[in-house]
């Protein structure tokens, strides 16, 4: 071990293991995490044959599919022995299945676990969960969540894909009426998924009922060939995050049974009668869940970047502070501390706030079970801005860490490129950040007006009441 790092470690004032237990969330979770890591490290098929930063676009896809499937199969085997793999516990393994830690790359099955499975849980009624959930959890079908189109992303009401109910056959006909209606971006869609949850404008009895989710099989399960009426492919190379296999998808009079509309929240009956969800925000549940995951994930990206840069800054020596003494460790320069230590602290703060959001999400889910939607708008508002801040700060923070490593930080072998690619991808997907801030702001404007009327506010905005009810004296 490098002698400077040994010296650093000898100065530690606290019990590192105690910190780790707190950071990971308890002794049991730490033990489970280490078992999982040990298991993964011991599997020869999890190792890269060639460093991924040297392979071609096609080779990268093939290698990430190989690793993702191996990781899923082995993880499932390990989990089955201990707990059984089910809808209740799969979220505990999302970091393995979706995170880029084990893969060092985005994963073509990540959206299957992070959005397709939660989408079935969040949008599917009991009967539909019976049909698809177990098959999805066990990768008997491979799915993705298909929302964004070439012409529209964050503005959901602008989506063009149509799902028109045909009462005669009790089917729904899906169409992409223009090139801009083509689905574009979903991870795993290009060559990996054979099913997807498609968000489309529902028409029945001559009326549009807005965007609703539909379960659609897009490829044959045996041959993997696209089904007739489906045009599908991969969208090409990107700045980073290339392992995720983003795809495009067009529909031409593609028919699905009416019962493939996911009907946990909204419902469509045989005669085309549409029953709205009790809250318009309910259909966004999967997106809220995903935003919580993004906030958690990006805090980890920043923590990893800070780990790399801080260790290197203690190994690297550069310049002198006192001309009579040898070169100092880079971290002894106050400017370096000012770059790196706030990133370290911020990673922790972002993780703790994402944990808090996760608790709010769970509490809100329990409320929903008994039909209480009171906290949904608050949850939606805070998840929007937390996604925006955590991704933006993580991306900026990873870049600060890279720059703090000087010339060597520019090498892809440092892994900053993948960390930055993942963080900036998170800035980009699941809602454009400015639009997300505006959604939060609209909620704040709304509750400000409630506060002016002396109404009770939800916990995260309750503080506004005291400012609304007294004049600004400054």
């Amino acid at each position, binding site marked *: 071990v490098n002698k400077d790092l040994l010296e*650093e470690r000898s100065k530690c004032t606290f019990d590192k293991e105690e910190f780790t237990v707190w950071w990971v969330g308890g002794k049991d979770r730490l033990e489970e995490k280490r078992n999982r890591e040990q298991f993964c490290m011991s599997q020869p098929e999890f190792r890269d044959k060639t460093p991924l930063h040297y392979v071609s676009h096609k080779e990268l896809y093939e290698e990430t599919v190989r690793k993702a499937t191996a990781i899923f199969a082995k993880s499932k085997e390990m989990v089955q022995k201990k707990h059984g793999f089910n809808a209740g516990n799969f979220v505990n393994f999302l970091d393995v299945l979706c995170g880029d830690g084990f893969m060092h790359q985005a994963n073509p099955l990540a959206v299957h676990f992070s959005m397709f499975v939660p989408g079935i849980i969040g949008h599917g009624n009991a009967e539909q969960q019976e049909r698809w959930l177990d098959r999805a959890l066990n990768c008997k079908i491979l799915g993705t969540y298909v929302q964004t189109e070439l012409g529209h992303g964050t503005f959901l009401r602008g989506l063009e894909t149509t799902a028109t109910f045909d009462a005669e056959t009790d089917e729904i006909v899906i169409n992409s009426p223009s090139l801009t209606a083509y689905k574009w971006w979903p991870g795993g869609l290009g060559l990996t998924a054979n099913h997807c949850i498609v968000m489309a404008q529902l028409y029945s009895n001559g009326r549009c009922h807005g965007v609703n989710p539909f379960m659609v099989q897009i490829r044959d399960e045996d041959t993997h060939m696209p089904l007739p009426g489906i045009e599908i492919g991969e969208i090409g190379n990107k700045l980073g995050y290339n392992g995720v296999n983003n795809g495009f998808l067009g529909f031409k009079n593609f028919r699905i049974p009416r019962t493939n509309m996911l009907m946990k929240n909204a419902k469509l009956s045989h005669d085309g009668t549409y029953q709205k969800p009790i809250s318009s925000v309910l259909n966004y549940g999967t997106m809220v869940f995903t935003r919580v995951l993004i906030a958690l994930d990006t805090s980890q990206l920043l923590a990893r970047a800070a780990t790399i840069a801080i*260790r290197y800054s203690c190994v690297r020596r550069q310049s002198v502070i006192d001309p009579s003494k040898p070169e100092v460790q880079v971290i002894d320069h106050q400017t370096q501390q000012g770059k790196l230590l706030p990133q370290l602290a911020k990673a922790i703060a972002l993780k703790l706030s994402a944990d808090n*959001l996760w608790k709010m999400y769970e509490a809100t889910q329990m409320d929903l079970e008994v039909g209480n939607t009171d906290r949904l708008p608050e949850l939606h508002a805070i998840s929007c801005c937390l996604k925006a801040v955590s991704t933006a700060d993580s991306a900026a923070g990873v870049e600060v860490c890279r720059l703090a490593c000087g010339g060597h930080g520019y090498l892809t*072998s440092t892994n900053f490129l993948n960390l930055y690619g993942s963080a900036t991808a998170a800035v980009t997907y699941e809602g454009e950040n400015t639009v997300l801030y505006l959604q939060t702001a609209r909620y704040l404007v709304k509750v400000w007006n409630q506060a002016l009327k002396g109404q009770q506010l939800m916990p995260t905005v309750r503080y506004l009441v005291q400012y*609304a009810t007294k004049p600004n004296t400054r």
Partner: protein
Amino acid sequence: FAWSDSIPVIIEAFQAVTANRLRLANEHIQQRINAGRTPQEAINETGLELVRLAEIHCRGFILQSAYAAIEQACQAASQPLAEVLREICRLVVYDEALRITGDLLRFTTMSDNDLVELQRKYESSLAAIRPNAVSIVDAFDYPDFILGSTLGVYDGNVYERLFEDAMKSPLNQEPVNRTFELYLKPLMRGKL
């Protein structure tokens, strides 16, 4: 809002800034509506203010969440760990506060001297965390397998790792690349 540099007060200051910015944004929306804009147009024209206040609201939420979680952890933690966690909390709160000093000077009683003191506390916090920096990142418990970084390896033998990785480059698998015969040599001989 009465400024002080205690951590809970700084976090509350984020709330005060959000509330005052929200008050102003609301007034500006109303003024624009009174001037004949539709509510949607008025909101669009107040977009910059709205985005900024939403971000500050969120930063207040992050700081409040971190502070609450760390204080809760400190109740059960050993004293040395509690000191480290509280120092981390102080650093992130000072850092965030220094990023909105314009708002703090505008919407709280913060003075120039208070600002100088905040900067001093921030620098003290950096110095206090410095000796534990490596141990804190060690405590994140990322194995080398997960970090996947030549510079971030636990043993710190970074120069050896950089060299090993360079040797894996496809371009280093043969001593002479075919472009020598195809292009470089003809160029040097004037036969291109």
